């Protein structure tokens, strides 16, 4: 017999969906970080990586399938978060005078806040580096670079230059670094919590998983934040200046880009 009313998602199912969508997003984040870290291997490597990412077998269908499913999992994650948070607030309308916190971590109590900020970041991030519409003009000056695919040289969009140019703005870089710190917090609770939500945790593993999640959060933070931080420190500046001079020379119609400091 059915134990649920129609159109009502049981509390535990909401938590499973939260955990599973979270896991998918965590796996994506690991892949994304490893991909991004090729930035430090130089323009040839990351530009070739970008080419391969956009020319996966079965592209563009596979690419859009991956993007679509990631967005779908993100949507599930946010949808469940909204439902759970709304219900939780309703279930506990009043607080105690001098409410004490005995066990919960700061990261766990701020999950909705860090979640919303990370979501806002994702929107900005896609607009900046995927659709490349914000900030205005930052990538109009980015041209192509030579890459080698299967020993065949070809011209492809210079992702390395785009990253350097994008992170040359201290405000944007700072925004990225701060958001990655928030992501570190979000993951330090989320990664341990997803094991509990699907029932794969016990007292013996609780502490270990908590430490593991904290370490994981830090790895993700350092991995991602190292890129804007190194650009701010001057990494890739010469390459970008050189390329921009070349692009300006090749296309005299385009305006000469402002010199980088």
């Amino acid at each position, binding site marked *: 017999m059915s134990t649920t009313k129609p159109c009502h998602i049981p509390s535990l199912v909401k*938590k499973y969906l939260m955990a599973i969508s979270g896991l998918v997003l965590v796996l994506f984040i690991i892949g994304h970080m490893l991909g991004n870290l090729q930035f430090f291997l130089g323009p040839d490597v990351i530009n070739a990586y970008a080419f391969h990412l956009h020319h996966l077998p079965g592209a563009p269908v596979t690419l859009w399938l991956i993007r679509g499913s990631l967005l779908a999992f993100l949507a599930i994650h946010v949808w469940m978060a909204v439902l*759970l948070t709304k219900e*939780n607030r309703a279930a*506990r309308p009043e607080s105690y*005078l001098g409410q*004490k916190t*005995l066990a919960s971590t700061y990261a766990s109590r701020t999950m909705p806040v860090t979640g919303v900020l990370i979501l806002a970041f994702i929107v900005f991030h896609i607009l900046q580096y995927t659709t490349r519409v914000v900030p205005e003009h930052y990538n109009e000056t980015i041209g192509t670079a030579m890459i080698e695919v299967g020993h065949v040289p070809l011209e492809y969009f210079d992702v390395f230059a785009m990253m350097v140019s994008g992170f040359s703005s201290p405000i944007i870089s700072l925004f990225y670094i701060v958001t990655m710190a928030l992501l570190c917090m979000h993951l330090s609770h989320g990664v341990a919590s997803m094991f509990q939500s699907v*029932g794969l945790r016990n*007292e013996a593993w609780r502490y270990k998983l908590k430490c593991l999640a904290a370490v994981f959060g830090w790895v993700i933070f350092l991995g991602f934040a190292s890129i804007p931080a190194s650009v701010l420190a001057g990494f890739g500046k010469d390459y970008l200046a050189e390329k921009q001079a070349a692009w300006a020379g090749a296309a005299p119609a385009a305006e000469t880009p402002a010199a980088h400091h």
Partner: protein
Amino acid sequence: MKLHLKIWRQKNGEEAGKFVSYELPDVDEGSSFLEMLDIMNEQLVGKGEQPVAFDHDCREGICGMCSLVINGEAHGPQRATTACQLHMRHFKDGDTITIEPWRAKAFPVVKDLIVDRTAFDKVIQAGGFVTARTGSAQDANATPIPKPIADKAMDAAACIGCGACVAACPNGSAMLFTSAKAGHLNLLPQGQAEKDQRVMKMVSAMDDAGFGNCTNYGECQAVCPKEITLDFIAKMNRDYAVARVRNFFNHAC
């Protein structure tokens, strides 16, 4: 010892409550927390005022009736201790003590510090039992139960249903209670026959009663006077997933 009390007074469920201050000039350190309230109530009755209503029964820490949030902590500052087993020696002379009822949507205030915990009964009625004729007692060891399983079931069965877990949870979630009650029977051979139905029905009753969701804070475990762990919540999450999948395929064929 001299105490300053700030107590939540609320006439009934309909009217809004407020904190009222009381001074207790001379409290014995050896008295229990509830005895301290008894002394105060005697003084209030002597003055012709309404005594403060609070739940209590066995005063031995085994019935689960006392339900006080003391200085922002369910059952007060002592770990693994119900409010009735808490003694005044754990407070200092001149302390201000705040006393509030459990606060959760599913536990409406009846009067002052008394809340209605019928929602827990609904969860138990949904599956916290074994449907079997009991008859006369069978031979001991007729149903073999491994010692670790028996111990674990006993840990869960220690739940006295006081509701401190709900009171302490920032989400007003009853996961620790429900998981202890479901886990206790689901561990034992006698509970196997109804395992899937039990966990599905109890979770459904828990949701219907208006309790919040678990966000794995761990506050419930910290205040539980019987030291029930989050392990049982993990077990219930596991049992529920298995039950739903099994239920789905049983319907499919």
